[in-house]
């Protein structure tokens, strides 16, 4: 950190929130230009976690690439898998059977709740509240147990296959999800009681990192960050996929796009996901769980772009196939990276302590940012 002049000096200081930092949610380096305490400008340096997933895809068959997709946004692995499988199915004009689509919806919504819980815990920890983290992790543990019973893995689940599912739903799946959803509403009320009316929490989040609707759309920001700025856009309603068209749920939006609204939007989304899960487990249709997909997949040459509403935002897959078993090109639209672009504009004029809050509210995962 080079300090041009003394603490009293008027011109700027460059402050390094280095890659190894307690509250940058992974290996993100932010170079802040400070005028005293106020942030004048910032530049994010990323790439510390770049593994070249898209290049690897060109030398893997379609089924072999599916586990890689879970390693991108490791906090919400199930929705990555859903996006990829549906994209390839669209490429091959194959429909997953209704039973598979419903089970996929249930697992994706549970994963959204788990991702939001992890976000709430770490976000509150950055701003100083020590307790919510452990409450959120307690709930998340229940969800991870359900994943473990279903497909043997907790984090990088690789739960879905192209064309449907690999594993039949274990018999108490409905009972487990029912038990989880039954008292989950009370749990969210616990978080609300702990934080929503908390003067210090409101003081630290209201009016911080404001992103107007116009700027949000201009920057291509998606997901809860976009909805908190007042734009009513959710892919589950706009372009329904899996079995979302069968269930009714509402899309929470905020008014003035500050950290407090994003917090409220994500809390409400957790409640809506619970509603979807409850509706879904009432009638899981019987029938096969895997569509007519051969062992070796040779999709017709051509290209497809398919995007789903991941917990962080619009997660898109653009796959170009040249008729062989290996994709010619796989391009992934990472919502965290595009949301991160808005960071510089959101933290200008704020203090250094707010940078931590804004990084937290963007809910970025560096695995997805760097790919």
């Amino acid at each position, binding site marked *: 950190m080079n300090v041009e002049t*003394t603490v009293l000096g008027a011109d700027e200081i460059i402050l390094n929130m280095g890659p190894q930092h307690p509250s940058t949610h992974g290996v993100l380096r932010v170079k802040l230009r400070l005028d005293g305490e106020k942030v004048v400008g910032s530049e994010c340096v990323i790439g510390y976690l770049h593994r070249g997933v898209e290049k690897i895809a060109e030398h893997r068959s379609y089924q072999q690439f599916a586990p890689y997709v879970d390693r991108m946004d490791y906090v919400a692995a199930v929705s990555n898998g859903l996006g990829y499988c549906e994209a390839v199915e669209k490429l091959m004009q194959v429909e997953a059977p209704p039973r598979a689509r419903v089970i996929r919806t249930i697992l994706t919504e549970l994963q959204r709740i788990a991702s939001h819980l992890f976000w709430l815990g770490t976000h509150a920890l950055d701003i100083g509240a020590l307790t919510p983290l452990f409450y959120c992790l307690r709930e998340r543990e229940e969800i991870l147990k359900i994943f473990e019973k279903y497909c043997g893995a907790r984090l990088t689940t690789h739960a879905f296959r192209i064309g449907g599912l690999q594993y039949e739903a274990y018999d108490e799946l409905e009972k487990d999800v029912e038990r989880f959803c039954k008292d989950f509403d009370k749990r969210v009320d616990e978080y609300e009681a702990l934080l929503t009316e908390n003067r210090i929490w409101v003081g630290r989040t209201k009016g911080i990192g404001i992103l107007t609707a116009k700027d949000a759309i201009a920057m291509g920001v998606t997901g809860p960050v976009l909805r908190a700025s007042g734009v009513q856009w959710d892919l589950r309603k706009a372009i329904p996929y899996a079995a979302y068209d069968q269930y009714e749920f509402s899309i929470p939006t905020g008014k003035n796009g500050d950290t407090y609204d994003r917090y409220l939007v994500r809390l409400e989304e957790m409640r809506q996901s619970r509603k979807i899960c409850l509706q879904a487990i009432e009638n899981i249709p019987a029938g096969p769980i895997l569509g007519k997909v051969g062992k070796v997949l040779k999709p017709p040459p051509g290209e497809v772009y398919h995007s789903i509403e991941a917990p962080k935002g619009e997660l898109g897959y653009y796959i170009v196939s040249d008729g062989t078993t290996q994709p010619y090109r796989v391009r992934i639209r990472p919502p965290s990276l595009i949301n991160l672009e808005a960071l510089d504009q959101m933290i200008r004029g704020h203090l250094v302590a707010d940078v931590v809050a804004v990084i937290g509210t963007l809910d970025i995962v560096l695995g997805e940012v760097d790919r």
Partner: protein
Amino acid sequence: MFNEAIFYFFAALAIVSAILVVTRRNAVQSAIFLVTALLATAGIFLNLNAEFLFIVQVILYAGGIMVLFVFVIMLVNLDVALHQVQFNRQWFVALIISAVLAAQVAAAIMVSRQSLYTMPAAPAEALEPNTERVAFYLFHTYMLPFEIASILLLVSMVGAVVMAKKRV
């Protein structure tokens, strides 16, 4: 006997730390020694049964003004001033001044012949609580100076804030 020992100890401490304040190169160390000098004088006040003044000295002087000094020394980031020459060549003038002062005091003591006049022994418990008496005088006979002092403080506060604003 115990009483005198305390006085002489604090007096020696005060003088030694005063000398160190003036001679140290590093401003932070001289600030620390000034604090010890102030606490030594506070000890002397306590020895003279002036407890209220002792506590005012500790809170206001050592706890308030000196914190301000240490603050400013750190804000002003003194290592730039450290390697500059700290002492100007006016040793000679200083020597003359202190010699004159010493001569004056010696003369005063000789003339007054009361130098051996000793302090009346402090009655052990009879002395009324010092704080109540100070408070009585402060708020009755010396009401006006008290108000003037508060206005003085107000003026100096405003002055300090205006002085230290960013864009002077």
